């Protein structure tokens, strides 16, 4: 297992290089550059020149790429051109909010996915099964930003029971600690739902198939013949056997969660990495974008590794070496 873990971690190196290089090239290919943001309209020619020189914006592309790569190799993510702050500090501030959101989205994904998938399998062919299938296909197909806006309209404007944006209410700081906790939870619900729903639909469909397959197997028939009720058969025997494909799906779903967070965080004004990336791309702040994508790349590698380790722990037949 140690060799497997090390091998998987080593794959992060070429992945990181690829992420940085592709991101850099895409930013270069985009029309315009950060000077559109840095140089105020109407600036004097001297000021414009001073700003371009200060940030080496007129250096050749290869020079800027090699400088960025060299800095990243030495662990220096550089300075944000727009904010003039170390990118590492910006990521350190934003990462907890994104981890909280993706963690919650993961929970939504698993709980909703397994729950709905199980119900469908138990009520195979019923109207519940059919309507859940249609809903999951629709949820999987709609873009997360659209779903986010629909959720905001429904639960923040028409039936105002949940907050529409941000991670906390600005007045929450003046409330008791328990109400602050509730406030944070309330702010997490809509973005986590918007981010997790599409993957929950995917998991529900996979879990339904896996569960139906397991339900036809001999050990389930044996359990039933011994007089166990359907709920007990499901929770004690079938679920455990059917959950394995879902665990491997979690590793696959992580990149979608992280990429989806960019748009969802923007819609909900969530103060995480997604917002940082969105602003970085908008302003063509190369160090910020490269730093964030690098961290996302590493998180995906680690997440995938954890999913594999969890699958191995659940199924002794899987050999990691």
């Amino acid at each position, binding site marked *: 297992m140690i060799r497997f873990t090390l091998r998987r971690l080593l794959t992060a190196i070429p992945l990181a290089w690829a992420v940085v290089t592709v991101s850099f090239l895409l930013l270069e290919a985009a029309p*315009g*550059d*950060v000077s559109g943001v840095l140089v*105020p309209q109407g600036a004097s020619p*001297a000021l414009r020149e*001073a700003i371009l020189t200060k940030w080496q914006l007129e250096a050749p592309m290869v020079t800027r790429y090699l400088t960025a790569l060299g800095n990243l190799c030495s662990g220096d993510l550089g300075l944000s051109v727009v904010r003039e702050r170390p990118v590492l500090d910006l990521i350190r501030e934003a990462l907890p909010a994104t981890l909280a959101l993706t963690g919650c989205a993961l929970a939504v994904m698993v709980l909703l996915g397994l729950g709905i998938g199980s119900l469908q399998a138990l009520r195979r062919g019923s109207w519940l099964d059919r309507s859940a299938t249609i809903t999951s296909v629709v949820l999987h197909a709609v873009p997360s930003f659209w779903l986010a806006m629909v959720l*905001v309209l429904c639960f923040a404007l028409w039936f*105002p029971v949940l907050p529409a*944006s941000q991670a906390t209410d600005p007045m929450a700081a003046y409330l008791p600690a328990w109400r602050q906790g509730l406030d944070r939870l309330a702010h997490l619900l809509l973005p986590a739902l918007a981010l997790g729903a599409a993957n929950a639909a995917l998991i529900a469909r996979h879990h339904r198939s896996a569960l139906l397959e397991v339900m036809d197997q001999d050990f389930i028939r044996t359990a039933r013949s011994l007089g166990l009720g359907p709920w007990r058969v499901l929770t004690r025997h079938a679920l455990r056997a059917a959950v394995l494909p879902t665990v491997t799906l979690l590793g696959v779903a992580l990149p979608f969660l992280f990429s989806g967070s960019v748009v969802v965080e923007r819609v909900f004004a969530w103060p995480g990495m997604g917002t940082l990336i969105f602003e970085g791309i908008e302003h063509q702040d190369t160090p910020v974008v490269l730093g964030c994508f690098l961290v996302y790349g590493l998180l995906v590698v680690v997440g995938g590794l954890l999913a594999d380790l969890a699958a191995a722990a659940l199924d002794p037949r899987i050999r990691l070496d």
Partner: protein
Amino acid sequence: MPTLPFLLLLAACDSPSPPSGVEAPSAAGDTLVVAWADDVESLISVLPQTSADGEITWLINPMIADVGFDCGLSFAPFAAESWSFSDDGLTLDVTLRDGLQWSDGAALTARDVAFTYGLAADPAVGSPRASFVEHMDPQANPRVLDDHHLQFVFLRTYDPATMLAHAFGLELLPEHALRDADRATLKGHAFNRAPLVYGPWRVASHEAGQTVVLEPNPAFTGPEEWRPKLRRVILKVLPEAATRLLELKAGSVDMVTGLEVEDAIALRQERPDIDLHRRGWRAMEYIGWNAIDGARYQELLTAAGDGPAPEPAMAGPHPLLGDPAVRTALTQAFDIERAMTELLGSGDKLYGVRSVGTISPALCQHHASELVPLAYDPDGARAALAQAGWSDSDGDGVLDKDGRPFSLEILVSSGNPRRERIALLAQDALRQIGVELQVSTLDFNAYIQRAIHKDFDAMVGGWSADLFVDPSTQWRSGPEQVYNFVSYANPSVDALIERGLSEPDPTAAARIWRELQATIYRDQPYSFLWWVDEIVAVDGRFQDVAVHPSSPFYHLHEWWVPADKVKYEH
């Protein structure tokens, strides 16, 4: 408060007047929650700032004089107790109020003023406000006489209000906190997150990307009447305009700036308890017509390599737009009044006024109000184009001349629905006279790069109005004038700018600026569209709200809420 160049006329107000006879409470009460598009990035006044930075900087560390506006700038004492010009008009003596302190207890002295202006002048800082000191003697910008007296020495005299604006226009910075800072990376300095203040407000907390909380500065040593009446102001960072509007409707925020007209109409019906204020003629919009051959200029730029940018005139006139008579015809073909009503009208209210130049109508003395905007006249436009040799010889609906169709690309920046709409309306209008416009909607960075490199035929653009009448940016000619996007070049306009900027007599300067606007309007380098009146929505429980062109938070210390309407008790 945003930078002084945006300071303009007194705002009109759609909202009812505050109830008369209601006394302001003696104690601070209630919280104002404001939805704002930008987060705070820098509270150092000499650096490039977001709009949130500008507003908060002015609230926590105001300029040394209280700036007002009525057809022009006016100044009242604040940190500066008094001031006077020497007889030759070149030296400005300023006396600071006694007993002013920063929030850490250090005395605020003339050295802090000198330090702030020194930062603006330092090329290592790259300050966008370096122009404030460019007309001052480098040895005295300003000179510190003692703790409470300083002297600004100007190299030449010009409009006295502008000279005062240059001398008073920077929000102060504490020398003892920033003396040893690396000037090249000031924006990343810890001061931006925990600033020392001397004004009526302090930053109580800042959660990146979420909120900025302002509270009254308990150590405020300025004039007693500037002590805030509200308990707290919270700026809630909401980048999406739709979210800001939604939260205003839901009642979770009290104030939103920059409302679209159609949103204002809906808001007036759904939430009549919200007051809508007008901020004044701050910004204008135009369609710019490139005077030079943009494609040829790209070749010249490529040939110049890393050398200096070539003279735009070397590219030769634009094959379709080089003739002022053609540009005039294009303006006549566009029903600007109707477009203005459609885009800036709401019932019987109109949030726009026709523009004839880049000097705001708010600057009453200098604005050429006598100029009559070109009327909508498609027949006249057709006739003018025919006279210039354009006809539809092949019957395809598009004019042509010497085998070249009258087809143009028009650039517009994405994310600004009104400007995108302008491009479409213009496209439709010009099609009626046989001119084809192809709309290219670009990301702002790409849009501005193409505009700077003059790589376009036409563009939809806008300018924020300057306080100082200095048309150099838009209209002075030459390769270094990168923001003269349309490469307008007229020697008589260059001469007028030079004369106007050196004229100390405001009446004589006004005559020059009016002549300048008339000259430019004749040449029609732009189809000047309109000045936009920004709409600011504020919950009706707030009293004495004076939304001002200089800031939606003008004299925020005077805002208050009657005891029976307080929403946030804690």
